[in-house]
């Protein structure tokens, strides 16, 4: 359980980090919070020649209001999200999600950009990025680009990021007034990988759903939206809509797999049920 040897560099600017990644030619790996990379190194599932530590680049940390939303620097610690007033006021869904990410001890190191860009299908932050229609800012020596979360994930631990690109920030647009959000998951113990779960954003105007976003975690090779269920809810009236049916429809749009933790059938059935229960509780309590 010891990592294979590697070279270590600790750039103090984004530009220097990008130079290292460009020179690394796909064999350099970014170390952010390390809460996933360190186990991968210890298990020798990752054997990079160069580890580029981005923890000492001040420009990559911090939370600010920007462009009608909240901009979170990639190296912002997950623990910071839980106490940040800007997040609490303008992106509370992010804090709801982070409460389910790992444990106290891993959130003190783990970063928002790291978990979001890793693309673990059962992780909370990728599904949150999808539900909130976040924009992911990626930089390389070739320039900067903004990638919609919906276009970002291509498979388990796979994204559209090029080997020389670095996620530098994530932008979470403000939700319309009257939006209730929730993050709900089923896990055997707190901090375990979710067996099923979802992030939902429900906008209501005078009791009528006007905008709905549903993103599942642990229900496919990537986090997945449920476009049919979202469309089916819009225009319906709270109190008259059959949320159990919507839950079943939403879960039927996913692509879960059988593994040692749960069967695909379990994930769909449990997903539909917790959807109905959690959404009705959250909307009644609003």
């Amino acid at each position, binding site marked *: 359980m010891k990592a294979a040897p590697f070279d*270590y560099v600790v750039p103090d600017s984004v530009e220097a980090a990008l130079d290292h990644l460009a020179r690394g030619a796909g064999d350099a790996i970014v170390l952010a919070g390390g*809460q996933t990379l360190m186990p991968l190194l210890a298990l020798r599932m990752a054997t990079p020649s160069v580890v580029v530590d981005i923890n000492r680049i001040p420009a990559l940390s911090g939370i600010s209001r920007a462009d009608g939303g909240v901009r979170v620097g990639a190296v912002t610690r997950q623990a910071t999200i839980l106490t940040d007033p800007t997040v609490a006021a303008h992106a509370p869904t992010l804090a709801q999600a982070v409460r389910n990410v790992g444990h106290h*001890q*891993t959130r003190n190191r783990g970063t928002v950009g790291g978990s979001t860009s890793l693309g673990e299908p059962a992780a909370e932050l990728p599904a949150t990025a999808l539900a909130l229609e976040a924009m992911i800012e990626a930089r390389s020596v070739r320039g900067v680009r903004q990638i919609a979360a919906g276009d970002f994930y291509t498979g388990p631990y796979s994204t559209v990021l090029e080997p020389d690109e670095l996620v530098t920030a994530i932008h979470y647009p403000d939700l319309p007034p009257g939006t209730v959000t929730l993050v709900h998951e089923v896990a055997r113990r707190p901090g375990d990988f979710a067996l099923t779960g979802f992030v939902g954003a429900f906008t209501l105007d005078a009791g009528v759903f006007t905008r709905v976003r549903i993103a599942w975690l642990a229900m496919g090779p990537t986090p997945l939206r449920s476009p049919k269920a979202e469309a089916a809810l819009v225009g319906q009236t709270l109190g008259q809509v059959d949320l159990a049916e919507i839950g079943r429809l939403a879960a039927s749009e996913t692509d879960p797999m059988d593994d040692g933790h749960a069967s695909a059938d379990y994930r769909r059935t449990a997903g539909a049920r917790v959807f109905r229960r959690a959404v009705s509780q959250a909307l009644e309590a609003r």
Partner: protein
Amino acid sequence: MSDHKIRLTVDGGPVSKTVEARKTLGDFLREDCGRTGVHLGCEHGVCGACTVIVDGKAVRSCLMLAVQADGTEVTTAQGLAAKDGTLHPVQQAMADEHALQCGFCTPGVVMTMAALTADGARPTEADLKAAMSGHLCRCTGYQGIMRAARKLAGVNQ
């Protein structure tokens, strides 16, 4: 392959060493600093036994490279008690509540509780319980650990 010179504070004392890039903070503390009170269980971030405090935060020392600790202040379970041997309040609570059996997970548990109660902070029982989810005790002695946590949270029992 690269070696790095690092300077940090370990349990209040200055340390200056050269480390291989791949060495974890946990291995560094045990092998290079004599802190065998840092217990490495799973070595990949699952068990929590290796938890230490880095710049005031409880972190898993197997999930951090030693070189990343350059310039930081690290506290291990061996740095908690007073010089005269008086136990830290967390250690005393653990002893009072018989909150350890084999003792392997104990240093990690103690460091998380110490971080959460530092500087007179009074975490709620729920906070402590949530934080304890990051520790596995294979003796399953969780009730004793939670009694110690409740004592630290000031909950009457």
